């Protein structure tokens, strides 16, 4: 049976405010956070909800991001719903605990406002902070605008806490471009969100006596979390994390679909968001807010008869390899846009992932890389046009002059 689309209210929200509003509606038990520009508004708005009594949440202003995530990890281990937010140096300081959180299978949800890493100090957008954490065992979802931020945070609780998944999840929004830009955001009524996220379901695990007990810290049914685990079982535990990550692909799609039924909003299939790719010969691939600008460029090119398309990756972990291969099967020249760089590597991280995914593609597309927008450097339509122009040239000549380039930088 198809559900009716819920009546939604339009609110003027910035990306940060959209996060706070989604968390407010998601019945979160514990929030611990430390301020860092440009994430602060999330925590400020949320603390207003807490102090106004609009939410039933324990809110702790801790002394560092390391403590923020540690507090959330511990709270999550007791079986409750937890949330934190950070970015840049704050996320880097959490690095150690990111692995502990995913290793303890604590489904913490975190909003990351993507900001460049020091030094030199820069508060503007690039993806270096979350890209370095792609191996930490967290699900990663990159959003395009404030509306998707709101939608994705709500979905993140369902994904992370699913008893088949139990993986912490981070939702990435671009600093300032999304975090501080006011947009019309359609929000659901509280009760519908509450029903959608539900209460956290705790799976049963075997305890030290072989008895099935809920997987949470509970004095009635004690379990040990995060102890010494050497070459005897560590490897199996890591393998289980990978298995959960593989299962997550399907789950992200399913939860995205279920949410789409209620709101009428969908972002591709939840993992990838293709734009005018059906008959495209050339395509760019990017994450985050750049997709908005790139879509306009694609429309302009299409109006001139150029068969251009765009692929936005929404999920980066788990990486939707099959979906990417399928959707690009007829594209002949591809430009991967990276808003971070792996110094000394052959191109940026998204380029590595995409190019290696398409290595076995029967069509053998030409794939080039553009590193762009570091430290908040603007990515205007003109530069995206340059990328598509280069793709057209590759299509004509079948030759790639320079596979990895930096664009929009003084050289």
């Amino acid at each position, binding site marked *: 049976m198809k559900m009716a689309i819920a009546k939604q209210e339009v609110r003027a929200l910035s990306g940060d405010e959209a996060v706070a509003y989604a968390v407010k509606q998601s019945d979160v038990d514990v929030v611990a956070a*430390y*301020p*860092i*520009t440009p994430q*602060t*508004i999330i*925590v*400020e708005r949320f*603390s*207003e909800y807490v*102090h*106004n009594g609009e939410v039933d949440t324990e809110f702790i*202003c801790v*002394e*560092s991001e390391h403590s923020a995530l540690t507090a959330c990890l511990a709270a999550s281990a007791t079986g409750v719903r937890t949330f934190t937010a950070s970015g840049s*140096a704050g996320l880097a*300081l959490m690095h150690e605990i990111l692995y502990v959180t995913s290793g303890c299978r604590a489904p913490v949800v975190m909003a990351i406002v993507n900001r460049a890493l*020091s*030094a*030199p*100090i820069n508060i503007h957008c690039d993806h270096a902070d979350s890209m370095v954490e792609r191996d930490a065992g967290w699900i990663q979802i990159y959003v395009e605008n404030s509306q998707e931020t709101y939608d994705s945070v709500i979905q993140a609780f369902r994904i992370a806490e699913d008893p088949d998944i139990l993986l912490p999840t981070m939702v990435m929004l671009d600093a300032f471009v999304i975090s501080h830009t006011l947009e019309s955001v359609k929000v659901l009524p509280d009760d519908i969100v509450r029903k959608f996220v539900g209460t956290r379901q705790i799976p049963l695990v075997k305890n030290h006596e072989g008895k099935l007990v809920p997987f949470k810290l509970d004095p009635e049914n004690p379990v040990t979390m995060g102890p010494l685990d050497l070459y005897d079982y560590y490897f199996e535990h890591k393998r289980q994390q990978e298995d959960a990550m593989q299962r997550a692909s399907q789950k992200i799609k399913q939860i995205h679909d279920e949410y789409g039924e209620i709101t009428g909003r969908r972002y591709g299939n939840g993992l990838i968001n293709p734009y005018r790719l059906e008959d495209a010969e050339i395509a760019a691939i990017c994450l985050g807010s750049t997709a908005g600008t790139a879509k306009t460029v694609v429309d302009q090119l299409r109006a001139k008869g150029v068969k251009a398309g765009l692929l936005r990756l929404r999920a980066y972990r788990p990486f939707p390899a099959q979906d990417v291969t399928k959707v690009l099967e007829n594209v002949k020249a591809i430009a991967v846009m990276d808003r971070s760089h792996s110094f000394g590597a052959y191109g940026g991280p998204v380029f590595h992932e995409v190019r290696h995914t398409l290595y076995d593609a029967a069509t053998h597309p030409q794939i080039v890389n553009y590193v762009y927008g570091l430290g908040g450097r603007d990515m205007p339509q003109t530069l995206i046009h340059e990328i598509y122009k280069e793709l057209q040239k590759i299509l004509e000549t079948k030759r790639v002059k320079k596979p990895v380039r930096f664009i929009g930088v003084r050289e």
Partner: protein
Amino acid sequence: MTEAFTSRKYLRDMSLPFCVGCGCVTVINHFLRAVHELGHKDLSKFVFCSGIGCAGWIPSPYFKADSIHTPHGRSIPVATGVKLLRSDLNVVVFGGDGDIAGIGMGHLVHAARRNLDITVVMVNNMIYGMTGGQVAPTTPIGTKTTTTPYGSFEQPLDVTRLVVAAGASFVARWTTAHGEQLKESLKKAVATKGFAFVEAVSPCPTAFGRRAGFKDVAETFRWYRDNSVPLEETEKMTVEELTSKIAVGEYVDRKIPTFTETIFKTIREAKKSEKTN
């Protein structure tokens, strides 16, 4: 006759980033005046370390000197490294309360415990000012901040007393309304062998004063003046009487072995005994 003081002599030709009424400017003036009165014609005998937050911008990039701007809270470990390599230089850390006593608190306690020969100037505005006014470990109870809209409810930390207890050589606290005393303490701090800590309670009109109900900076200054109690007088006061008061003065000035003295002495002796063996 000694040359007349001008802060410009020690500053690069660029405009400062601070809000109107910010105490950081007062701290810059008094620190540079202290440096001048100690006879330094320039800052060539200094290295400055700072972290994140408004006070982190005091030396970097504005002082005509070597300075290193480090991640949030990490200025003291950086200063430790600098001091061990160049023990001949004055290593000075500038930071706010969030940086020094919040995220970087562990480093502060250990540097004081070791009696590491550096000077730490903590500009205490009682708030995370740069990020827009979130509650800090120093925020007085009841203060409205962006993360405590109905008033802070956590006990604030008396950082100065903590540093005394941890074992520093020199510790003082003044407000920016105590210009002359602050400058004299900064002079002593720079000249101190061992860990020197100066807390400068300082107004943040943008993120603190406005919400705390101060009409303008002048009112904050008057409040500082009227609510500061000389350290000697606080001994006779009850805990209730001391609430919302700032105990100002020089807390300790003691000669105790410093970190560099001890470590270099140990190395010298170890080398000597190796030779005799």
